[in-house]
């Protein structure tokens, strides 16, 4: 109703393969819109990865994250060996669930795409049969910019690009730059 979200599957089809969707993060509504862009059977096996500190800050948020979004909560600030953020993500992937991650590590202010954090690379290095799908979310930051509570109606779209795989000897900076480039490419069309 507010966003009239449209999905464009450009480089891949909505299939049930094991996938990591990575998207630009501009709004708290991001993964709701990503979910809405997916067919029901894909949605059922796809879980968003979200920040532990934000989503456990109040009981309401926690209930939303656990019951409604079935989010994989990871630590993004005080990372120790005991709460290694990779573990919950890998556990979900091994259980056959695809993930949605926002590799910028937080909501961005404007339209640009921030630098990627390393998680994508570490997931790629695990040797699972994974496809990395760039998903560019357009306009959603205008519906509800960071710091605003009231949404306004603006048409949004989600564009899914062609899948990426890590090269055999591709290093961390190279892979992250390639992934970010794929997302930027989608944003320009």
């Amino acid at each position, binding site marked *: 109703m507010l966003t*009239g979200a*449209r999905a464009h599957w450009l480089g891949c089809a909505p299939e049930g393969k094991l996938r990591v969707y990575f998207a630009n993060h501009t709004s708290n509504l991001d993964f709701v819109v990503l979910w809405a862009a997916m067919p029901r059977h894909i949605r059922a096996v796809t879980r968003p990865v979200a920040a532990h500190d934000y989503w456990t800050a109040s009981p309401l948020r926690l209930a939303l994250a656990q019951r409604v979004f079935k989010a994989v909560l990871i630590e993004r600030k005080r990372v120790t060996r005991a709460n290694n953020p990779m573990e919950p993500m890998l556990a979900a992937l091994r259980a056959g669930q695809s993930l949605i991650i926002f590799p910028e590590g937080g909501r961005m*202010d*404007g339209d640009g795409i921030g630098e990627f954090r390393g998680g994508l690379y570490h997931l790629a290095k695990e040797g699972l049969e994974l496809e990395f799908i760039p998903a560019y979310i357009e*306009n959603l*930051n*205008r519906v509800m*910019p960071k710091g*605003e509570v*009231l949404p*306004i*109606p*603006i*048409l949004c779209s989600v564009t899914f690009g062609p899948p990426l795989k890590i090269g055999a000897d591709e290093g961390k900076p190279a892979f992250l730059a390639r992934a970010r480039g794929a997302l930027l490419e989608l944003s320009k069309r």
Partner: protein
Amino acid sequence: MKFDAQMECLLGGVLALLIVASITGWILKGALRGEAAQKLVANLNARINAWWIMAAVFGAALAAGRTASVVMFGFVSFLALREFITITPTRRHDHRALFWAFFVVLPYQYWLVAANWYGMFAICIPVYAYLLIPIRNAIAGDTERFLERTSKIQWGLMVCVYFVSYAPALLDLQIPSYENQNAKLLFFLVFVVQISDVLQYVWGKCCGRRPIAPHVSPNKTVEGFAGGGLSAVAAGAALWWITPFNPWQAAAMSAVIVLMGFFGGLVMSAIKRDRGVKDYGEMIPGHGGIMDRIDSLCFAAPVFFHLTRYFFTR
């Protein structure tokens, strides 16, 4: 509003037109060969199918009465404004002003129509909303491209909300010896606007050669405008019996509607070219967005309203 025999007759006529259009589309689909022709026919048939839905929505709103018609046009305004703002780049600090535009100004304008408060209806957006938007934006404190951003929101409100709201406002005009028949006046406006678009499209596709404004809208041709416009005026004049006008007056009114509708399409196309998009949206298959369908109505409705109000009401 109770439907009289004339109104039933009109809706029957629209139904007949749609059936003829669908059959024609179906015949063309079988008759034409070649990829380009098939693509054109596919678009034509998508348009015809969308017409069925649009006619059904409009007919149902008219049948359900005055309030339903006002609500329907309010909803159309909402969708149009959403498309308009989507293609217009706004900045983060416009957020609150936009919130006012969507959720305060728009509903209030349609409430004024429903409440039949003409004095306020006519000035609410051109005076009060016009002042409110820059004030809210100034408080937000972002001065970059301030004038441009503010005017975009003001334009959106004028075109998508204010002008469109003149259509349901026709229902409240007090025209001597035409009491309780205003639904037919609204039908007249919408029918002439839309049939003019359709006929200009058909004439343009059949014998359009010389484009009128190639940079703004390559599909608008002299032949399409002349042929389609004149046939639409003839169609409007032939409907004089449902209006408070005599045949000549109906023809003149139709001519004004056709002309303003044409200019509306031209101006709204210029905005699209400026923004580098082909359509305002993808909501109506074959047509584009809702704004692509009502651009002519936006410009024709206020002029038709004021001419009727000036010359024909008490």
